[in-house]
């Protein structure tokens, strides 16, 4: 227990240093099935990984040439139009405020008039110009783009040998238990990460095509945002509806298209619930929404943005450990023999 507490304390103190390693581990979980696919055909693991890196590098280069100009063009356009949107928002809020003053004369006029005309919205509007600085604070994450693939390479290459060494060092009578824990954690975590990627990709693609059909600007940026935000349950749908509907509103100046955008994201969310989730949840660890939320809050409080990123996978690992520990406790402490399976008492013929 003391060792676990000490390890947790060290992890807390060094969490910023451990981020690239945790991300690499997640990426390795993601890529491992691909490596395994070729390994069962008898190919050397080291050669497969080198070839995989080569293919991924070439694919990224191609994607960068096609996708980056499109996204940056959308962002440039968005940047150019932000002052106009800001002005428009002022006008809309001003009109809304006048309407409120006419319809609700009970509200003291001085609270809503004069210099304080935008008091209610001031905090939000004050935060708007700071958005670029929030984005800039994520820049250190981009340095991970170089570190993570480097560490992932060695995780993919040496993980089987490290596991083999661990099995060999583990006291023989405890090998079964240790490997049982390992395989439970590995399968639940690996499936969770792979499921998440499938979800993000599917939501991004569906959102993109839906927005293109509706003729909404910045479809790629909104779809990507919604896909990434879908890491958090309902996050993708909420962000998609808010950002998509706002963009559609400013673009078309009516309420009809934003409603269509909202319907699109709600539809995608429902389709995800009906079609994707059963497939993803089939083998991965199921976390109760309350536990999910608790994990996010604790992760965010302790480790900030990084904590949000790793809260749910960490909760999956903890749940797998608890399940295995409970299973071990019940099987080790049971005194009465378990009941034989139905039909076991029939005579053998």
């Amino acid at each position: 227990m003391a060792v676990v507490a000490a390890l947790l304390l060290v992890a807390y103190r060094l969490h910023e240093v451990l981020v690239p390693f945790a991300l690499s581990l997640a990426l390795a979980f993601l890529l491992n099935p691909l490596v395994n696919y070729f390994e069962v055909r008898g190919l050397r693991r080291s050669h497969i990984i080198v070839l995989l890196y080569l293919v991924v590098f070439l694919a990224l280069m191609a994607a960068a040439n096609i996708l980056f100009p499109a996204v940056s063009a959308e962002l440039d356009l968005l940047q150019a139009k932000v002052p106009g949107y800001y002005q428009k928002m002022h006008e809309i809020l001003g009109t809304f405020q006048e309407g409120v003053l006419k319809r609700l004369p009970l509200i003291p006029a001085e609270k809503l008039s004069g210099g304080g005309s935008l008091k209610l919205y001031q905090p939000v509007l004050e935060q708007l110009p700071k958005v670029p600085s929030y984005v800039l604070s994520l820049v250190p994450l981009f340095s991970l783009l170089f570190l993570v693939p480097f560490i992932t390479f060695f995780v993919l290459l040496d993980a089987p040998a490290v596991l083999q060494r661990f099995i060999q060092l583990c006291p023989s009578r405890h090998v079964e238990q240790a490997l049982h824990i390992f395989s439970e954690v590995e399968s639940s975590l690996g499936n969770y990460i792979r499921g998440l990627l499938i979800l993000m990709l599917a939501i991004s693609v569906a959102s993109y095509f839906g927005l293109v059909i509706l003729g909404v600007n910045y479809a790629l940026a909104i779809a990507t945002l919604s896909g990434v935000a879908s890491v958090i349950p309902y996050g993708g749908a909420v962000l998609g509806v808010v950002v998509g509907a706002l963009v559609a509103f400013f673009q078309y100046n009516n309420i009809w298209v934003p409603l269509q955008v909202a319907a699109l994201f709600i539809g995608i969310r429902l389709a995800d619930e009906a079609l994707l989730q059963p497939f993803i949840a089939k083998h991965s660890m199921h976390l109760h929404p309350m536990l999910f939320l608790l994990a996010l809050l604790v992760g965010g409080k302790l480790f900030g943005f990084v904590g949000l990123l790793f809260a749910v996978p960490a909760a999956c690992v903890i749940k797998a450990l608890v399940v295995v520990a409970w299973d071990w406790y019940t099987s080790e402490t049971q005194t009465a023999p378990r009941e034989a399976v139905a039909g076991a008492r029939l005579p053998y013929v």
Partner: protein
Amino acid sequence: MWKELRHFFTDSHFRKRRDFLRSLPVCKDLRDREIGYLQQSLHSRTYHEGEPLFLEGDIGRALFIVETGRVELSKAGQDGKPHRLALLGPGMLFGEMALLEQMPRSASAVAVERSSLLLLYRSKLDSLLSRHPVVGVEIMTHLAKVLSGRLRRTSDDLASAQGATAAGPIVEEMEKADD
């Protein structure tokens, strides 16, 4: 040239183990790729002479396959001393009951000499059954045949020990239970 290229791209250790698995009755109907899936689900461990694999009463969670060396299975008698049940060599499977139900081991297993063993865990078998059903079903079928064969032998031993048919006492007991 072709041989050198093949040697460069393929994993000789992986190939050797696949050849070993192919020689086992459990894999006789499996193709190379399917044996590969099974191979990826197995863990290996080397045990030194006299090292116990598990003791009677431990909760079992894995099936063992002897790759090299020899393993002795023993059970404590009424006098408390271990009595040898079997001496297993390369290619032999044991501990399969742990894959079907997590019950205490009915015997102890100790490496008689330096031995290499392959371990298959229940969670890995579950994964094989869902992702590669052909492999999973083949293993389960083989286990069913092994258990059926052992039960048949146990019934015969019981019958010869009691001097009567094995069905007699079991049916009587069931009738009593029904009453």
